[in-house]
C-alpha cells in the first residue's frame, strides 16, 4: 500500500506457466493502469488466453508475480515466506475481477435476470430488491431490458454474451477480463457485443481484452500487446503496434488478420 497513487491496477512481472512439459508463458511483463483498455493480440497458442486466466487464478502460475490493485494474486507473503491462498481467499480476490468467456458460460438453468443477480446476492450479500433493480439497469445498459425473463437457450449468441457482460458488471469489479468475447459468435452478431464493450471503455472501465478484432483494438485500446510463443513481442499505443509495427512477426500476423478479417472489420467500424 506504500506504492504511489498511479501504481498500475494490474502489474505482471516475469510470469511463467507450463502445462506439463509445454511452457505456455515464458516471462510476461505487463502494466495496466486504472481506466485503461489493454488488448492482447497474437496467433492461437501464443499464451494470451492463459495469461488472462492467470490474472484471476483460473490458472496457477509457476514463476513471476501478478498484482491486482496492489495485492498479490493467488499468494500471500507471511513471515517472509510465500503461501498459496486457499479457496476462500482466492474467491475473495475474484469478486473484484469480472470475467467474460469466449463461450459465454451463462448458467442455463437460470434466466437472464437470475444470472445477473446470483453472485451479488449470494457472494456480496446484496439485498434482493436492490440486486434486482441494479440487474435491470445493467440489462438495459446492454440493450436487453426486455429479455430479463428469458433463459440463455432462448437468446442468440450475441444476446447471451451481453448478459454475460452484465453478469460480470453486477459485481462492480475494478477490472474486467474478456477472453475472446466475440470468437464464438456469428459474424453479424459481433458488432452488438463490441458496441457494448466500446461503451464500457468510454465509461472508463479498466479492461484487458484478448481478441482477434484488430479494428476494435486499433480504435478502443490504450495499449496493444502483441504476444507470440509465450512472450510479449511488442507493445505500445495501437497507432504504433498496429499502425506501424517494428517486429516482423507482428507485421506477418497483422497482414494475415487484416486480409482474412477485412469483410468483418467494416461491421464494428460502422457502429
Amino acid at each position, binding site marked *: 500500500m506504500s506504492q504511489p497513487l498511479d501504481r498500475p491496477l494490474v502489474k505482471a512481472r516475469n510470469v511463467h506457466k507450463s502445462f506439463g512439459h509445454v511452457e505456455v508463458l515464458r516471462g510476461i511483463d505487463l502494466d495496466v493502469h486504472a481506466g485503461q483498455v489493454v488488448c492482447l493480440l497474437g496467433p492461437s497458442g501464443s499464451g494470451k488466453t492463459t495469461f488472462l486466466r492467470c490474472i*484471476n487464478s*483460473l490458472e496457477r502460475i509457476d514463476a513471476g508475480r501478478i498484482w491486482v490493485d496492489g495485492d498479490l494474486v493467488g499468494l500471500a507473503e507471511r513471515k517472509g515466506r510465500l503461501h498459496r491462498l486457499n*479457496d*476462500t481467499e482466492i*474467491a*475473495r480476490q*475474484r*469478486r*473484484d*475481477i*469480472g*470475467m467474460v*468467456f469466449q*463461450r459465454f*458460460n*451463462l*448458467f*442455463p*438453468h*437460470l*434466466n437472464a*435476470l*437470475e444470472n445477473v443477480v*446470483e*453472485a451479488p446476492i*449470494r*457472494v*456480496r450479500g446484496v439485498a434482493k430488491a436492490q440486486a434486482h433493480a441494479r440487474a435491470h439497469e445493467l440489462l438495459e445498459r446492454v440493450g436487453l431490458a426486455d429479455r430479463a*425473463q*428469458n*433463459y*440463455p*437457450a*432462448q437468446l442468440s449468441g450475441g444476446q447471451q454474451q451481453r448478459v454475460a457482460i452484465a*453478469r*460480470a458488471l453486477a*459485481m462492480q469489479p475494478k477490472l474486467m477480463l474478456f477472453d475472446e468475447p466475440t470468437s464464438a459468435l456469428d459474424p453479424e452478431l459481433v458488432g452488438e457485443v463490441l458496441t457494448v464493450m466500446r461503451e464500457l471503455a468510454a465509461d472508463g472501465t479498466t479492461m484487458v481484452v484478448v481478441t482477434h478484432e484488430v479494428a476494435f483494438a486499433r480504435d478502443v485500446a490504450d495499449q496493444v500487446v502483441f504476444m507470440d510463443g509465450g512472450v510479449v513481442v511488442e507493445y505500445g499505443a495501437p497507432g504504433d503496434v498496429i499502425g506501424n509495427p517494428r517486429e516482423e512477426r507482428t507485421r506477418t500476423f497483422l497482414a494475415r488478420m487484416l486480409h482474412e478479417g477485412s469483410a468483418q472489420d467494416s461491421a464494428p467500424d460502422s457502429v
Partner: protein
Amino acid sequence: MSTPEAPGTSGVRDEEERPGRIDAVEVRHPWRWVTVAVIAVLALMLVHLLVTNPAFDWPFTLEVMNQTIVIRGLLVGTLFTTVCAMVIGITGGVLLAVLRLSDNRVLAGTAWTFTWFFRAIPRYVLLSITGGLGALFATGLSIGVPFDFLLQQWFGTPDLRLLTISQQSLFALFGGVFGGIVGLGVSEAAYMAEIARAGLLSVDRGQHEAAEALGMSKRLAMRRIVLPQAMRVIVPPTGNEVIAMLKDTSLLAAIPVATELFFRVSQIKNTTYQVMAGNMAAVLYYLIATSILMVGQHFLEKRFSRGYGGTPARRPAAAGVSLGPGGAK
C-alpha cells in the same frame, strides 16, 4: 405429355410450370392392420382369462387388499421403507459422488471402496446381514471415545462411554424395519453414487469457471450452479431407482420383517390357498404405487429441465413453487 409449345394457351403447360396443390393417394400400410388385429385378438383372450378364470377370485382379491395387516404392511414395510431408504440412498449417493470427484485421494478412494463393496453384495444377502447385526455386539454398542479400553489399560483413564445400547435392543432394532432401511439405504447409496457422479460430470467445466470467476466458493458453486444442472441428468434414472426400491422392499423377508406388503399377502395365501388372488392383491398395490411415483417423476423432470426445453418466459414469482403442476408450468 409433350404438348406443343404454345405459351398462354395450353392448360397442361401451366400445370407443369406452376404445379398446384398435391392431391395424391397416401401410402397404404396393410401390415399395420394385420398387427392391430392380432393384438386385438390377444387382448380379448387376456380379458376373457382375467374375467372368467375361477383362479382369479377378484372379490377375494379386493378383500385381501382391504385387510388391515396388508394395508399396514404396504404403508410401513413397503412405502415408508422405500421413502427412508431412498433418502439415505440419494443423500449418501450425492455425498459419495462429491467425495469421488474430490482432489483428496483418500476421500476419493473411500468413496470408490464403498461403492465397490455395496454394489457387489446382493440386497437379499445384505438384508440378512443387517437383520442380524446385533450379533456383533455382545456387550452392546457404545458411543464415546474410540479405543477407550486401550486408554484405560495404558493410562488408567475411566471408561469414556456416553451412551450404550444393549445387544437385546440392537437385535430388536436391526431385526425390524430399521434394519431393512439401513441395508437398502447403503446399497442404494452405492448405486446413486454412480448416477450422481454421471450427473456432476455432465456439467460443463465452463460452469465451474464462470461461478468461481464471480467469486463463488467451490461449495456455493456446487450448490447453486452445478448440482441444479446435474439434477437434470440425475432425476430420470433416480425415478427408476425409486421404482426398483419399491419392489425391492419385498426382500425385507430376509431380515425377516413381517409388516411388509408381500409378506402379509403371502401369509394370507398360505392360510387360504387362494394363491393367484393373493398375488393379484400385491400386483395391484405395486401397480398403483408405481403409477403415482411416475406422475411425481414427470413433474420433477419438468422442474429440473428449466431453461432447456425452450419453455416460455415465466415470472420469477412462479419459480418458488417447486413440485406442483403450477410450479412446472
